[in-house]
C-alpha cells in the first residue's frame, strides 16, 4: 500500500487484485487456483493417509475421517431425508470439506509470506468466482435432484400449496444461489479484511481474538453452506401430499 508512510510485511491489503493467468483467450485468477490446489492436495493427502489401512477398531486419522463422515451423513440425512440422502452425501460432504479447508486454510496458513507479482494468496472462498461456482452447482443439483426423483411432477413444487406461490418460488430460484454465494463470499472476505486492517493498525495482540472469531465464522459458514445446499436438495425431492 504505497500511500501509507510505513508498510508491515503481513499487513498489505490488496483488495480486488488478481494474479491473472491466460489460457487461450480465457483469463483465470491464478491465486485462487494455487491456494485451492494446495488445500485440496492437503485434504486428499489426509484422506489417503486416513483410508490407507482401515480397521474395525479405528486408529489415528481414521477416527477423524469417520467423525467427519458421520457428521456429514447426519447433516445430509436430516436435511435430505432417509430416502435419497445417500446419493447426495458425497456432494454435500465435498461442499462442506472444500469450503471448510478453504476458509480455514485462508485463515491459518500465512500466505502473505509468499510474494506474488500481483494480488495475494488467501482463502479461495474469498473470491466471488469460487462462491458463485459453488452456489450454481447447488442450484443445478437441486434441479437435477427434483427432476430425477419426481420427473415433471417436480414443478408441482412451484404451485404448492397454492398457485399464488408461483412467482415467489421462481424468484427463490434466483435468490438461493445469490444468497448462498454472497453470504460465503462476504463473510470470508470481510474476515480477511478485518484481520488485515487490524494487523495493519495494531500489529500486536488485538488481531488475535478477531482471528479466532474468523476461524469460528469460517467453520460456521462451511456448515451453513452445506446445510442450506442439503436443505434445497431435500426440498426438491420432498413428496407433497
Amino acid at each position: 500500500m504505497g500511500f501509507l508512510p510505513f508498510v508491515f510485511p503481513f499487513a498489505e491489503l490488496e483488495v480486488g487484485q488478481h494474479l491473472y493467468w491466460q489460457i487461450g483467450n480465457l483469463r483465470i485468477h491464478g491465486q485462487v487456483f494455487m491456494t485451492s490446489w494446495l488445500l485440496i492436495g492437503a485434504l486428499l493427502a489426509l484422506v489417503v493417509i486416513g483410508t490407507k489401512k482401515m480397521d474395525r477398531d479405528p486408529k489415528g486419522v481414521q477416527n477423524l475421517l469417520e467423525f467427519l463422515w458421520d457428521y456429514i451423513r447426519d447433516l445430509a440425512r436430516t436435511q435430505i431425508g432417509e430416502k435419497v440422502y445417500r446419493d447426495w452425501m458425497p456432494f454435500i460432504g465435498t461442499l462442506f470439506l472444500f469450503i471448510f479447508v478453504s476458509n480455514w486454510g485462508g485463515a491459518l496458513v500465512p500466505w502473505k509470506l509468499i510474494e506474488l507479482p500481483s494480488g495475494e494468496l488467501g482463502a479461495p472462498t474469498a473470491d466471488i468466482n469460487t462462491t458463485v461456482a459453488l452456489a450454481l452447482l447447488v442450484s443445478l443439483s437441486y434441479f437435477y435432484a427434483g427432476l430425477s426423483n419426481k420427473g415433471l411432477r417436480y414443478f408441482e413444487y412451484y404451485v404448492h400449496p397454492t398457485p399464488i406461490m408461483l412467482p415467489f418460488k421462481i424468484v427463490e430460484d434466483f435468490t438461493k444461489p445469490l444468497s448462498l454465494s454472497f453470504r460465503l463470499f462476504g463473510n470470508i472476505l470481510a474476515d480477511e479484511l478485518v484481520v488485515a486492517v487490524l494487523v495493519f493498525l495494531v500489529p500486536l495482540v488485538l488481531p488475535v481474538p478477531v482471528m479466532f472469531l474468523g476461524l469460528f465464522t469460517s467453520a460456521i459458514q462451511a456448515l451453513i453452506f452445506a446445510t442450506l445446499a442439503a436443505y434445497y436438495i431435500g426440498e426438491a425431492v420432498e413428496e407433497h401430499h
Partner: protein
Amino acid sequence: MPSLFLFGASEGGLFDFDATLPLMAVQVVLLTFILNALFFKPVGRVVEEREDYVNTSRAEAKKKIAEVELLEAELKEQLKEARLAAQKVILEAEQDSENLYKEALSLATAEANSSREKARLEIDSQRDDALNQLKSEADNLGNLIVERLLAKK
C-alpha cells in the same frame, strides 16, 4: 496506486467474473468424484460394516440374555421344588423320629410299670410270708414260754 479497486474497474475488482468460475465448478465436481471414491465410499463401507457388526452382536447378546433369563427362571423353579421336597423330607423325618420316640417312651413306660407292679407284688407276697413266719414264730415262742412257765410250776 494499485489498491482498493472495489467496483467497476476494467482490470480486477472484487466482482471480477471470468473463466475462474466455470473452472472452479469443474474442479469442485471432479473433487466430488475423487472424494466419493477415496473418502465417502471406503469410510462409509467401514462405518456401516461396524454398525452391522455392532447391531448383530447386540441382537445376539439380547438373544443370549433372553436364553439365560429363561434358564434362570427354570432353575429357580427347580430350586423351589427341591426346597419344598427337602422341607417335606425334613418334616417327615421329624415326625418319624417323634413317633419313634413316643413309641419307645410308651414301651419303656409300660415295661417300667409292669416291672414295678411285679416288684410290688413280690414285695407284698414276701411281706406276707415274713408276717406269717413271724406270726408262727411268735406263736411258737408264746407256746414255749407258756410250756416253760407251766413246767416250772
